[in-house]
Structure formats: structure tokens, C-alpha cells
């Protein structure tokens, strides 16, 4: 069963300098009970993708074509009210910044109760559920925590509270947008382990966005590599990290200093800049920075299936 299937999604923003083609022909699937990671550097379109799924694109943005099918419904063509009904109970989100994610003037308990506004439970029962969730994310003294305000918690705790809120309605899909980036390394690992445990317990799928390759490798079953608004490679984490078939993936993995176990004075880099998405190059999106560029790269490369489930958008990728 597939929870989320995105097919040929194109998103365009109207800007002063012309149309900005933020996402081009993005396709991937999130199967049931799997954790899918999206990797990419700044400007790769991760945030736009999440906003498109949640129906929260900025006013000047629109889905030009393609479909986002979530549990059989196409989110790209659903009206606002219908998407709003899905958000929360079926589709939930944790955002990057733990400091700003919670309303500063409403107590944690009341915010958690508000999230359960669709349920008929009595107030005390809702609070009991909230306390239960806070215990699950290891907030000490959970009953007391309900009365407190967000600024009274540390950054790591706020992020765990946000996770508790997101998972409270037991959604089918949790979108986690760089949930650990703002945290210190030692906090990051505990948060990731927590997320993993909760996912197994609730049995939801997770779409995990991060620029941190190590975290993706550790947490995710599948991985989607994005560059400048395109999916350049996708497959199981083992396939993609073990046999990177798009030059960008390969170079990105090389760049991670964690991969160089030997000390080196000359670290690998990817020279060049992101293309201007208002004037998207005709052919392969990575061609300008690619050291294996060929003449054919002036055309858009096809999605080549290296092995079943492992796809790369590059002429060099070979089916095995």
C-alpha cells in the first residue's frame, strides 16, 4: 500500500523576474509504514514540496501540473476545506524551528486540547491523552507541563512537544521538515531515536526532510535526492548510498566530511552555483556543475531504473 504518491509534480511561483519553476517533474512514493528521506542542499525545493503537499503554498505559487495522491485523494486538486480536514488526523507535520513552532501565549495543554477539537471526548479525557503523549516523548512531569507555556521549555523539549502534538491524532503520514537541524548533535540523535520508536509504535509513514546525510542513512528506509527542484535520484537508502547513480548524489556523498575516515587536507567540493530557476537550463539541471557532462546532457535525461525501485535521472545511469 502506498500512503503518498507524487507524480510529475510541477510548481511555479510568479515572481517579479518572471515565473520561477521551483519543482519540475517530481515523482516518488511513500509506502505504508516506511520512513522516506528527502536529501538536498539549500534551494533544492524541499520546503516547496512540503508546502505543496500540505496545501500551504505561498499566494504567488501554484501547482502547474501533476498529482499528489494521499490515501487515494489527489491533494493537488482538493479544495482548502478538504485538505484542512486531512491535516491533523491523517497528515501531520513537525517543522524545523522548535522555538517558533508553538504558540507563545497559549499553554501547552490548551494547544494540545485544541488539536483534538474534532473529537467528542470530554476535556479531562483529552488532557489525559495529551499527558500520555507527552510521556511518550519523555517530557518529565507531563501533567504539570500542560499548564506551562512554550517559553518555559528548552529547545529540545519544545521539539519533542511538537512531535507529540503532530503524532497525537495518529496520522497516516508524518512530514518532518528538518526537525533536528536546530538541535545540538547529542540532542539530535536522541530526537531521531525517539522519532523512530514512535513511528514503529504508531505505524505511520514518515517523510523526513534533512540535509544531513548521516541522519538520513541512519533513519530512513528509502531516500529521495533533490537538486534545484528536481528529483535526481531515488531508491532504498542502501541502494542510493551504496551505489549512487547520479553524479550529484555521488559528489554530495563525497563532500560529507564524515565519509572521509582518512584525514585529508583537500576536501572534495562541488564547484559552481545553483542555476537560476527563473531561467531553468534546457537540459540536465546539474549539467553546469557536473564533471561527467556529455553532449547529450543538453536534453533532459530520462528517469532510468538502475534496479527495480532505484531510479536516477541521468544518461549515465545504467539498468543492471
Amino acid at each position, binding site marked *: 500500500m502506498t500512503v503518498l504518491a507524487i507524480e510529475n509534480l510541477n510548481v511555479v511561483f510568479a515572481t517579479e523576474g518572471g515565473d520561477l519553476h521551483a519543482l519540475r517533474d517530481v515523482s516518488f512514493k511513500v509506502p505504508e509504514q516506511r520512513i522516506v528521506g528527502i536529501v538536498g542542499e539549500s534551494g533544492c525545493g524541499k520546503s516547496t514540496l512540503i508546502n505543496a503537499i500540505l496545501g500551504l503554498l505561498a499566494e504567488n505559487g501554484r501547482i502547474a501540473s501533476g498529482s499528489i495522491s494521499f490515501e487515494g485523494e489527489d491533494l493537488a486538486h482538493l479544495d482548502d476545506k478538504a485538505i484542512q480536514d486531512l491535516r491533523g488526523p491523517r497528515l501531520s507535520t513537525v517543522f524545523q524551528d522548535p522555538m517558533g513552532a508553538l504558540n507563545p501565549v497559549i499553554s501547552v495543554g490548551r494547544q494540545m486540547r485544541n488539536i483534538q477539537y474534532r473529537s467528542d471526548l470530554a476535556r479531562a479525557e483529552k488532557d489525559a491523552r495529551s499527558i500520555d503523549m507527552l510521556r511518550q516523548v519523555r517530557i518529565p512531569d507531563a501533567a504539570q507541563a500542560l499548564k506551562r507555556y512554550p517559553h518555559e521549555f528548552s529547545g529540545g*523539549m519544545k521539539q519533542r512537544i511538537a512531535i507529540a502534538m503532530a503524532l497525537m491524532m495518529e496520522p497516516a503520514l508524518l512530514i518532518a521538515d528538518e526537525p533536528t537541524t536546530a538541535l545540538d548533535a547529542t540532542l539530535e540523535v536522541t530526537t531521531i531515536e525517539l522519532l523512530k520508536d514512535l513511528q514503529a509504535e504508531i505505524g505511520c509513514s514518515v517523510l523526513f526532510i534533512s540535509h544531513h546525510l548521516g541522519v538520513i542513512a541512519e533513519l530512513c528506509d528509502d531516500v529521495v535526492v533533490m537538486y534545484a527542484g528536481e528529483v535526481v535520484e531515488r531508491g532504498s537508502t542502501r541502494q542510493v548510498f551504496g551505489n549512487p547513480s547520479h553524479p550529484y548524489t555521488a559528489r554530495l556523498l563525497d563532500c560529507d566530511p564524515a565519509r572521509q575516515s582518512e584525514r585529508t587536507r583537500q576536501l572534495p567540493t562541488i564547484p559552481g552555483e545553483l542555476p537560476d530557476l527563473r531561467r531553468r537550463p534546457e537540459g540536465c539541471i546539474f549539467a553546469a556543475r557536473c564533471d561527467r557532462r556529455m553532449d547529450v546532457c543538453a536534453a533532459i535525461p530520462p528517469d532510468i531504473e538502475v534496479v527495480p525501485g532505484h531510479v536516477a535521472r541521468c544518461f549515465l545511469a545504467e539498468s543492471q
Partner: protein
Amino acid sequence: MTAILEVKYLEVTFRVGPMMRRQDLLGVAGVSFDVNPGETFALVGESGSGKTTLARAVNGLQPISAGSVTFQGQRVDTLSVREMKPLRRDMAMMFQDPVGSLSPRMKVGDLVTEAFRIHRVEADLQSETERLLSLVGLTMDFAERFPHQLSGGQARRVGVARAIALNPKLVIADEPTAGLDVSVQGEVLNLLGELRERLGLAMLIITHNLHVVHHVADRMAVMYLGRFVETGPTEEVFSAPAHPYTAALLSANPEPDPDKAQDRITLPSEVPSLLARPEGCEFHTRCPWAKDKCRKVVPDATAINGRRVACHYPLDEGARPPPKKEPS
């Protein structure tokens, strides 16, 4: 060889809290280290560890409450702003935010030559701009740009050019890779390494990113709550961390390889407040190996295999993985 920078028992105190309940907070709690000419020394720690405060204290931007800072044989912590000024030609500092550390209404050309103007150095600024930009791999077109028109990597290069403008002996770099994508981090680190070789710079790098340290630093110190928990040659610290906190930090940086077994050391609870420092070993509240002695007795820094480690029970190879414990 005499050290270019010598820091002894340095302490920095902050006064915090509202007027009635003012408290003293020890941001840096007595650290000592030195940096030799041409050497790269790294300070590693997570947020709140005091590493940035320490760097600012070394640079004279932060008054110190005890200890001493000696630069090129001269005590600098006792100097006035005016007396300190000539020394600043030899000690440059780079700040965390690549774009934010550049004055927003100045052009790149004026930014890279600002040191010449401040120190009234006679020079052909036009050709100096050209020299400095080419040193950091930027073309002259950039001289006319404003900071907000630069990418993170480009802004960082401008920051490097500013720092090396007057050929300093020591460069202090606070999180040189902060805010940069992985594919650009390498560029900046390579550039720093190259300049170091070419100009014989000594460097003090402050970072939370252990992998960065691994590739650029000769020696390193790990900070926790304003103290050094472990100091030593980078290679050795990486191959066999002796302090549990160092070990935890190392294991907290997963490698991008799903097949690698991760012997993860998970630290329970969070970093204690600097206003409520734990008794005994200050790391015991999070240490998976903590014993009774750790809760009561403050460990001294002891020399182990050319390193200094502040731990009662330093790890050797056999001590891992940590004892399983219920998460608290």
C-alpha cells in the same frame, strides 16, 4: 618553539538575571591552552559550551575575570582598546554568520580593504582588492557587490579575505562552515588550509562539527560547560576518545552509510544550566558510565597518552559500548 598564543586559567563571568536577583554565571571556567606558529588548534563543543565566549575573550572582545591571554609574548588581557589596536593587525577574527558579519551597506571592495583604512596602512587599495579577491578565488566583479548579493560561500570567502588582509599571524575562525551547504563547506576549509600553508598562519578554529576538526586541526580541545574535558592531538582523540563526552559527540555524528553498525552512545537528559552546575564531575548527569565517585568528586585533568582528560574513569578501547540503561 614558543607559542604564538598562550591562554592560562582563563575565566569569563557574566552577570545575568533581573536587578534584584542578579547572578554570576561562569561562561568559561578556567581553561589553558596554547597555539604554536603555523598550527591549527580546534575548540569543539555544543551550544552553551562557552567556545565562542572563549574565542572572543582571546580576541579581547570580552573582558575576562581571571587568568591571562598572551599573544606573541605580550599579555593582551590587560591592554586598553587603544593599546590593543596595533596587535589586532596580527590577530584576525572571522565570525559565524557569513553574510551577517559583513556590513550591509558596504561594497565587497571596501570590505576587504577595511583593515588598511582602520590601521592607516599606505597601500594601493585597488590593487590590494584585486590581490585579496584573487587569493580567495573571487573575480574583481565582486568588488562592486553588496553582501546581500553574495551566496553563503562567496560571503565566507570575502570574510576570509578581510581576515588575511594585513597578513596576520593568527586567525580565529568561529564556526567557519556555519550556514554553508556540505558541497560548499569543503571549499572554505580547503581555502583556509591553503592559505595556512602559504602564509604560515596559526589558526584557532571554533566549531561544533567534529568532522571539520578531523580534517583541519592539528590539536583539539573538547569543551563542556565552559571547561576542557579532553585535549590532545586530533588524530589520537579521534581514534580513541578517552572522555565519555568526546566519545558521545563522535558517535552522535552518524556516517552516511546505512550498513555501518552504529555503536551509538545516547546521552540522557539535557545540558544542565550554567547557573546550576552539577556537583562532582559536571558531566555525570548525562554520562552513561557515571559512578558514585563521579557524583561527588571533581576530576582533575590528567595526562593520558599525550592527552589531558578530566575524567575519573577514562575510556579505553574495551570500555565501549556503554552499559544499557533505561532512558530517564
